[in-house]
């Protein structure tokens, strides 16, 4: 029963990881940059929700709407003010890598100055309700995360894989110059990719933050998980990254049934090392070197 319970809980946290990893992987695939600044967008969105709900005492729905606008705007700013400028100068992967790393550190620094590094809870009371199903305890939070998060994740994957917009993004991801010759507006697609990825951090940070609160340092942990998930799932594959995130949540949580919880992070990265050595293409993706990694 413990194994089943940890598996169920693992799915809930895995959905959170999958949402973030999928959005991270979308930028990685299309833009071919390790978009570390995604952690900064995630943190900013989290604090927008905190300020709107806990400081201004407005409903969560209003906070989510504002966070969506702010996250999309920040994503666009990062694209136009950074990646596009670097690309126009033919600066290469390393410059984008450093830009993204420095930017997320900067965002974290600013948030720390404003909010300190303390944990801040949303102005939403913690819901203690739960249900017993076949001996399993299903908390309201985990149910909402699985249902809402899972639905958003599926919709996102469908959008990428089944719509003309998604096919355009895939075209840009696989053969950017050929796609451009065939009439795809590459820069416009990059902007759309950045908006979509940034929008997706909002449900991620809302679902997790309701349970654990938000802090200025929270982005790095989920970013590391997303990197591991991208490698496990296959670099550049949105579906693969989502699968990788889900797998990390599931395996790590189930493993803690047998080993102390303090080993959780080590287990997540052990999984990544195993994939790098045994299956470098990941579950569904391409080889590491093809991404300039």
């Amino acid at each position, binding site marked *: 029963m413990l194994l089943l319970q940890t598996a169920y*809980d693992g799915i809930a946290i895995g959905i959170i990881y999958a949402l973030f990893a999928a959005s991270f992987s979308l930028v990685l695939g299309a833009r071919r940059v390790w978009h570390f600044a995604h952690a900064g967008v995630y943190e900013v969105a989290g604090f927008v929700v905190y300020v709107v709900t806990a400081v201004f005492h407005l409903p969560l729905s209003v906070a989510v709407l504002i966070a969506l606008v702010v996250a999309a705007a920040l994503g666009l700013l990062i694209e136009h003010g950074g990646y596009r400028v670097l690309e126009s100068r033919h600066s290469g992967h390393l410059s984008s890598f450093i830009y993204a790393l420095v930017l997320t550190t900067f965002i974290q620094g600013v948030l720390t100055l404003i909010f300190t590094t303390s944990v801040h809870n949303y102005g939403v009371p913690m819901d*203690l309700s739960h249900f017993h199903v076949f001996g399993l305890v299903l908390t309201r939070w985990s149910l909402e995360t699985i249902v809402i998060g899972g639905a958003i994740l599926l919709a996102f994957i469908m959008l990428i894989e089944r719509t003309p917009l998604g096919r355009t993004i895939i075209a840009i991801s696989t053969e950017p110059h050929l796609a451009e010759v065939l009439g795809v507006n590459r820069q416009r697609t990059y902007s759309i990719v950045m908006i979509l990825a940034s929008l997706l951090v909002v449900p991620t940070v809302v679902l997790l933050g309701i349970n654990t*609160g938000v802090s200025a340092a929270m982005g790095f942990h989920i970013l590391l998980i997303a990197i591991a998930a991208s490698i496990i799932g296959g670099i550049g594959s949105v579906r693969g990254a989502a699968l990788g995130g889900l797998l990390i949540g599931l395996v790590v949580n189930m493993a803690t049934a047998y080993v102390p919880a303090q080993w959780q992070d080590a287990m997540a990265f052990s999984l990544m090392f195993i994939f790098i050595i045994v299956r470098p293409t990941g579950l569904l993706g391409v080889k590491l070197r093809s991404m300039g990694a």
Partner: protein
Amino acid sequence: MRSKNRRRQHGRVIAGLLVLAAAVGWGGIASAQAGTKPDAYQFALIMPMTGGNAGYGMDQVRSALMGVADINANGGVDGVPLKVITEDSQANPQLGVSAFKKAVSVNKVPIVVTAWSAVVSAIAPFAAQDHVLTFSIGANNPKIKDLKPWVRTTFPLSDVGITALAKYTYTKLDKKTAAIVYVNNDTGVFAARLYKQIFEAAGGKVVLMEGVPQDTTNFTSVIAKIMSVHPDVVHMQLLNTGVEQFPGEYRASGGTALLTSYEAAQDPVLIKRSPQAANGIIFFSTAPDPSLSKPVADFISRWTAKFGRAPNGPSYCEYLYDAPYVIKAVIEYMNAHDMAYTGDNARKAFEALGSITLPLTGKMVMQSDGGVVKPVFINEIENGKFVRIDTVSPGT
């Protein structure tokens, strides 16, 4: 030949200057030893002022500053004001050491006050190296006793409270099985082992011990393990953010066992986060509450009036308010014995004092093992209030 003479001449001049400088320096030291009073007696206060523990740390800093202000308003220490240099440790050992080094090398403080077990342990070798008397006030790892003579605690370490609580939980609360969730650092590991040892010696059984990293805010997997072993009580030996978070997640998962903890549960944020989950938590403290002491009642009401809310962790705040009074007693002893304000002399003075009566926490008697023994107050969170339910005398 000429240049050789010139070099000799330069050598004599330099030697003469060195002798002169040494004489002036010696004279300065001699005059300090003769009791020339400084403009202020400086000490450093190294606490988490930002970070996950800042909610507690800042309130302790505010309390210590109130203590300094009260001492200075009443003529300072033998007519000289106390001056406190505040530094931020973020409860991080590395940052704590940096802050310590800065306070000692830049501000030349001979006395430091700090807390958080991991920070105190990290600072200890440097305190010994630089001969700085370092007071650990609030850190609770019993190993801190072993860091003497340069690190001294004026705060009862967790062996005092943990021993009392573990015995009390088994004998008075009639809980036979326990699970312990602890932070995997100096604050948690030793206290968790001690709880297990005392609880099992009393006749109980610890059915699960689970360590978590310091910054954990998601306890899902730990809770699943706890639920699978059905303990009567879950003892939380976590840092503040953990104690604020764990009860809500545990109750949301259907956990019904009694929750216990240490002073970290004396936290208004815990109640605000989830009043329903906080209700019924039992924790120990080693400082008197307002109902037991008028000075404490006055302190809490002054604090509340000044900052617009009650302090986080009032027990810690009481000890931190008293911290400058410990330093005052040490300096007064040094002045009475014509000793200069140095770390070596401060250490000798503190050891010679043996006991100090403090305004809020009462008489503090140093034990031969380096610890401090105080009565242990058993408290419960009842409808959003911290209520004392029992007092355990030392040694019982």
